[in-house]
């Protein structure tokens, strides 16, 4: 069995509009791949479709997580299979504390009848919080309620650290972060980097890639991956902007 997240010929429609068109991409475990591209090109759609958001209809293709098609799975099953999505706009959930939320998520990963070791849970939680410079008082705070943009994103990374996914999709985690928050978030992600985790980093800006250096960079345009390369591709994009991509890969009809 291959340890990789394999997206094969994926097409996704949102309210009758096709956003992803026959997109294919392979993310091996242990690697960090960045997806870059102009706004409105389908980057976030890819993330949401993979996580199983009900508004995103998959019309064709498959997504194999270590060989298993996750498109057959419910949202929570995908997560338990090892897929993690760091949301661009994480939900605020009044009345549910971070600790209770994460306990429920951890408990859901245990076999039936098995109980979570509470002491061990809190020990790990505090370690990860310290790593991400999150005040321990946050454990009893309601998830994301009244959090700043930076706090919300750090909370996403905290959840990722606690749930130890095989593959993490980070949907514009850098958006809305100031430089300090970006550094903390990036440090956190770098610590989670390793042979057991593949990371798909979706971003509009090259900035975060200075902190989280990708193994591969893919450029997305009009619902497809149109160009792939090494980390230098990100720098090229930063220097040249996205216009040349748009010109080079314009709609076939326009080209003809």
């Amino acid at each position, binding site marked *: 069995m291959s340890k990789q997240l394999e997206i094969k010929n994926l097409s996704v429609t949102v309210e009758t509009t096709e956003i992803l068109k026959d997109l294919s991409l392979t993310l091996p475990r242990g690697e960090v791949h960045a997806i870059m591209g102009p706004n409105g090109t389908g980057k976030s759609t890819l993330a949401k479709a993979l996580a199983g958001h009900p508004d995103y209809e998959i019309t064709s293709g498959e997504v194999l997580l270590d060989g298993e098609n996750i498109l057959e799975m419910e949202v*929570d099953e995908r997560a338990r299979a090892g897929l993690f999505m760091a949301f661009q706009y994480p939900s605020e959930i*009044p*009345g549910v504390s971070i600790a209770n939320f994460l306990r*429920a998520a951890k408990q859901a990963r245990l076999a039936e009848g098995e109980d979570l070791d509470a002491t061990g849970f809190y020990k790990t939680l505090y370690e990860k919080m310290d790593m991400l410079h999150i005040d321990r008082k946050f454990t009893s705070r309601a998830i994301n309620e009244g959090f700043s943009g930076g706090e919300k994103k750090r909370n996403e990374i905290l959840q990722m650290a606690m*749930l130890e996914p095989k593959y993490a999709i980070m949907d514009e985690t850098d958006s809305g972060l100031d430089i300090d928050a970006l550094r903390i978030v990036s440090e956190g992600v770098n610590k989670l980097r390793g042979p057991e985790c593949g990371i798909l980093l979706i971003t509009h800006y090259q900035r975060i890639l200075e902190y989280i250096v990708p193994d591969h960079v893919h450029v997305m345009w009009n619902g497809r991956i149109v160009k792939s390369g090494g980390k230098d591709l990100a720098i090229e994009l930063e220097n040249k902007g996205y216009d040349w991509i748009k010109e080079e890969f314009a709609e076939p009809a326009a080209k003809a």
Partner: protein
Amino acid sequence: MKTANGLADQEIFDAHLASQSASGAPEWWLDLKRESWRRFRKLPMPMRKDENWRFASLGGVKLDGYELGDSSPPEIADKEVLKRSENVRQRAGRLVFSNDRLMDSEAISEEWAKKGVIWLPLEQAVREHEDLLRKHFMAQPIKLGSEKFSELHGALCSAGSFLYVPKGVEVDLPLVAFHWTDRNNAALFPHTLLIADDMAKVTLVDFFSAHDRSSRNFICGVNDLYAGPGARVTYISAQDWGRDSLAFHLNSTQAFKDAFITSLNVNVGGRQARNESHSQVLGEGAHTQMQSLTVATGKQEFDQRTLQTHFKGRSVSDLLYKNALLDDARTIFSGLIKVEEDAQQTDAYQTNRNLLLSPTAESNSLPGLEILANDVKCSHGATSGQIDDEQLHYMRARGIPEPVAKQLLVFGFFEDILGKLENEEIAENLRTLIRSQF
């Protein structure tokens, strides 16, 4: 004794009066009861056209088929009842009633007794503290529709707790009262009278419960809270009456200068349960919080009528009523904020939130404002909605199965109130009660 017309029968009242008299109740108290009975008999039953009864099911509001709770001894042994009344271990005193009979009176701890705190069963307080009782007992009629039942309470009540905290005394552990019933068709009239003098501080908790979940009872309880200048009063009630019961809980609250009152009602019981609450802000700088959490299941109807009156300014009243509705349950919330002319710089808020967990549940909201002052901040709002899909998706995206995620969201709905309770043991009790409804 069961009679043809139930609680409205003269022989019911005569028997009650005789038993009160036999147990040494003073004449002034019996007179109060006679007057209440006379007024009760004169007042009409609620009628469809009454604005205060809009949306309520009147078909089930009947007085027949009930007998007085204390007319025969309880069936469940004292020891068992007391065991079930152990859920608040950290307490300053406890009273336990079953079918309106006193089962246990745990005197207030020496420490506070010495400072003049009075904590007694109502009947004993009537004999020993005439002045306080005459001044405060049902002295604030609330007039939100249940006047007739309030008079019936005045006429027939004997069980209940009396708490007086003198000037400057702070009781840092809660006083706890339990009202149980183990008999079908018993009518109960639990009373709570809390008087906190200037700068006093105290917490009182009432638990209302039927041993048998399917029990049919008539309950008309009254709780009156009085917070003198600078006093801080917390009142919490948990209502878990049998599911075939008709229950009224009528509350009046008086907050004097700089007083701070929090009252929280948690409701899960009854077939039809009506809460009326009138919060009066009588002094400048006073602050009242009126909170309610309800889980409505089956065909239950919860009917909530509230009034926040500001007589003096620079004061705050903040109402938050939250209902979670399942199955075919119904809730009615009708609230009014009244700001009198002199009450400038008043902040008054009223919020009713309904979480609809079933397509056949029904919530009704009637918020209202009546403002005579010109420099005030007032708001009222009512929302009814279902579980938020995005929140649910977010939780599921972390691997939490849908039913668990929904449950966390529903419990979370109540946490903005429960999470702020100072007393964690009481909060945990209330959480348990709420969770057991799902």
